[in-house]
């Protein structure tokens, strides 16, 4: 009888421990998130706008001399890319736990607006400035893409 009671007690204790573990720890796996889930659509959009910026500057280098690179000829390109960057920033801002990525998109947008202003003021861009702007935007996009890929 004593053995039976001791056995029952140890089973009860085990069940108690298991229930406690299940209750306390299992919900953690779904609740304890530090980052939003990887978003393929956002990753694709980063890739697309990065390509768009690269194409914009490569076309400028290939198809126009510095004298032909007047701002008016490129203003729609600037506006298109700015709109894409605004959309990307908004998409990232509304995702929960995504403060860092949203900030990075805001920084990229600010840089792009500065390059637009630079072109507007000079009304031309030298090859060296185009190459510099490409480098700065590429490095920024690499940083943003790496952040999104880390969420996989």
């Amino acid at each position, binding site marked *: 009888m004593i053995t039976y009671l001791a056995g029952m007690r140890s089973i009860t204790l*085990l069940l108690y421990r298991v229930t406690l573990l299940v209750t306390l*720890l299992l919900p953690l796996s779904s609740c304890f998130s530090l980052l939003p889930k990887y978003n393929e659509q956002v990753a694709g959009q980063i890739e697309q706008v990065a390509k768009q910026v690269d194409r914009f500057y490569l076309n400028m280098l290939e198809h126009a001399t510095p004298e032909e690179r007047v701002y008016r000829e490129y203003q729609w390109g600037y506006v298109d890319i700015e709109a894409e960057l605004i959309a990307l920033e908004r998409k990232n801002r509304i995702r929960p736990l995504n403060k*860092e990525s949203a900030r990075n998109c805001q920084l*990229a947008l600010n840089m792009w607006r500065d390059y637009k202003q630079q072109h507007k003021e000079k009304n031309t861009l*030298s090859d*060296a*400035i185009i*190459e510099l702007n490409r480098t700065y935007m590429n*490095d920024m996009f690499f940083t943003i893409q*790496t952040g999104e890929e880390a969420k996989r």
Partner: protein
Amino acid sequence: MAFNFDQVLHDMLAVVTAQGGKGTKRVKALVQTFAEQNRDRMEQTMQAYRNGELTEADLAMYLRHNKAILEAQFNTVKIVGKAAVQNIINGVVGVLEQAVRAVI
């Protein structure tokens, strides 16, 4: 089947060590890549300035953009670090989940 606390703890520690190691390696490699990019970008900027391609205002803008990229890189390192911690948490909870399921 009995619930072996020692084994579960051992498995959890193994997950922490493995995932922690992976996370540290990833962060180190990323910081190295960022450092190389920053060096090359600054060299390119200073070269253009020395060649008279940039005005003082241009240079000030690029220096500001270097600061912005550094901030973004710091944010990304934070994301990668959080992802590593998340992997550790998921791994540890996974070990517990398996152990509990085996008992149930």
